[in-house]
């Protein structure tokens, strides 16, 4: 587009005006890049210091503003500073899904990783591996994120619920299957585990999503009701 600007300056160009147009074009490029890359509005004097000699900063900025007028992004002046802003009428595009993306906490990451590697795994087992109690909120958040689910119940006293990961979990982490999770050798190889680990240390190979462990029962409607996840009568509450 600057081409167009230059052309309009050029029709009866002499050597002098050609050089001038080129200087202007370069000044526009520099000003544009400076304002774009800056973490805040840029003062005109800062820009002026970096423009080719003999170019008037304010004229450059006004031309740049004209260049961006009517576009998706506008150059705006705030006192003697300049900044790019999304055109006001387009704010609807930028704002559409203003879902805040949160990072998982350390505890959440750990619990998720244990569930991924050790599934099917009960809550007591998770706590055993981590060596600390797991707050209720941690599992809730992971279930809410859609990454963790109830898998079934362990055939052991108290029939504890077992946890596993979901299809969404695989999608999010770019895994084709659970077996793609790096194992002991790879964790060591990537420098994530040091060589100094005791003999017998193992990283389990997780059971596939749809497989039930030998000592595992599938989760039933009744179980879900018991756990308070389904209101009796079968109405889903998701």
């Amino acid at each position, binding site marked *: 587009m600057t081409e167009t600007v230059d052309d309009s300056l050029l029709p009866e160009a002499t050597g002098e005006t050609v050089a001038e147009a080129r200087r202007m074009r370069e000044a526009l490029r520099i000003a544009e890049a400076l304002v774009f890359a800056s973490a*805040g509005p840029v003062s005109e004097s800062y820009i002026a210091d970096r423009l080719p000699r003999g170019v008037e900063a304010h004229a450059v900025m006004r031309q740049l503003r004209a260049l961006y007028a009517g576009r998706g992004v506008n150059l705006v002046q705030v006192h003697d500073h300049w900044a790019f802003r999304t055109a006001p009428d387009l704010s609807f595009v930028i704002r559409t899904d203003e879902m805040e*993306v949160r990072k998982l906490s*350390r505890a959440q*990451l750990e619990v998720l990783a244990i569930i991924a590697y050790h599934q099917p795994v009960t809550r007591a087992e998770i706590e055993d591996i981590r060596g600390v109690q797991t707050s209720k909120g941690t599992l809730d958040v992971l279930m809410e994120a859609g990454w963790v689910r109830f898998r079934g119940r362990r055939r052991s006293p108290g029939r504890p619920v077992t946890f596993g990961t979901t299809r969404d979990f695989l999608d999010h*982490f770019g895994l084709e299957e659970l077996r793609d999770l790096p194992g002991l050798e790879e964790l060591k190889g990537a420098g994530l585990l040091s060589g100094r*680990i005791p003999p017998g240390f193992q990283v389990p190979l997780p059971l596939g999503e749809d497989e039930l462990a030998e000592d595992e029962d599938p989760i039933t409607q009744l179980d879900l009701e018991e756990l308070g996840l389904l209101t009796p009568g079968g109405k889903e509450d998701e």
Partner: protein
Amino acid sequence: MDVTGPGPKPQKRPRAAGAPLGAPMDGLWQEDAGERASHEESLVVDLAGFEGPLDLLLHLARTQKVDLTRISVLALAEQYLQFIDSARRIRIELAADYLVMAAWLAYLKSRLLIPKQAKDDGPSGEEMAASLAFRLKRLEAMRDAATRLVNRNRLGRDVFVRGMPEHIPTERHSAFEASLYDLVSAYAALRQRQAITQVTIEKRTVWSLADAREILAHLIGGGFDDWTALDRFLLRYLTDPAERTTAIASAFAATLELVREGRLELRQDGAFQPIYLRRGPRPEGDGD
């Protein structure tokens, strides 16, 4: 090679003859073969700048100042072995990788010098040499590629992002963000923390059976179809004279183990005669 890191650079740095102690090993290879003996005292062998035996070989090959496709592998093997010898003479501790390569090159040298036997169906010395040349070429190609890569216009150095983003559009349907790396490193750190061990392993002064097995298995590699008196090379390069007894014992025990698994065959023509090895009927073993 121009890298931005503070990493060591095994570049050729020309040195005056009789360079002071601490001079890089480069000087060593710019000497004439004939002169080398007389200069030996003043030469210092320094492996610190090298990333393993292949890197050292590549460096030596470069000093031949010819295209990698036309290097003399024999001369290269010779240089490498001399280098290892001088390192050993001045008691520099060499990593096992360097020694295994030395043993292999000594073997290669013997293959190149001794005419191929009629019934010998193993890889010829020339094939072995070609394979080595290929690996050197490939490593050099990757070095060049790395240099070209790092000299591209890089984000944050040559090219810049929007400094004042107004909003970062997200495509994730999940309200949470975590990468596979986050997940896996959290897991590894956790398991590591829980697996506290009091076991401290002393530095070995002898070869363990496992060491010997490992070294042999690497050396056997995909070849050894014919009888080879490899132990000679192994012992010469892999051990200090002081450790020789334990090395013989471990290597021999490991050999027997490999024979039992069908990965190796052994032959000895008489007492105190060389022990010959060749690949057994099940060279792959049962996998580890």
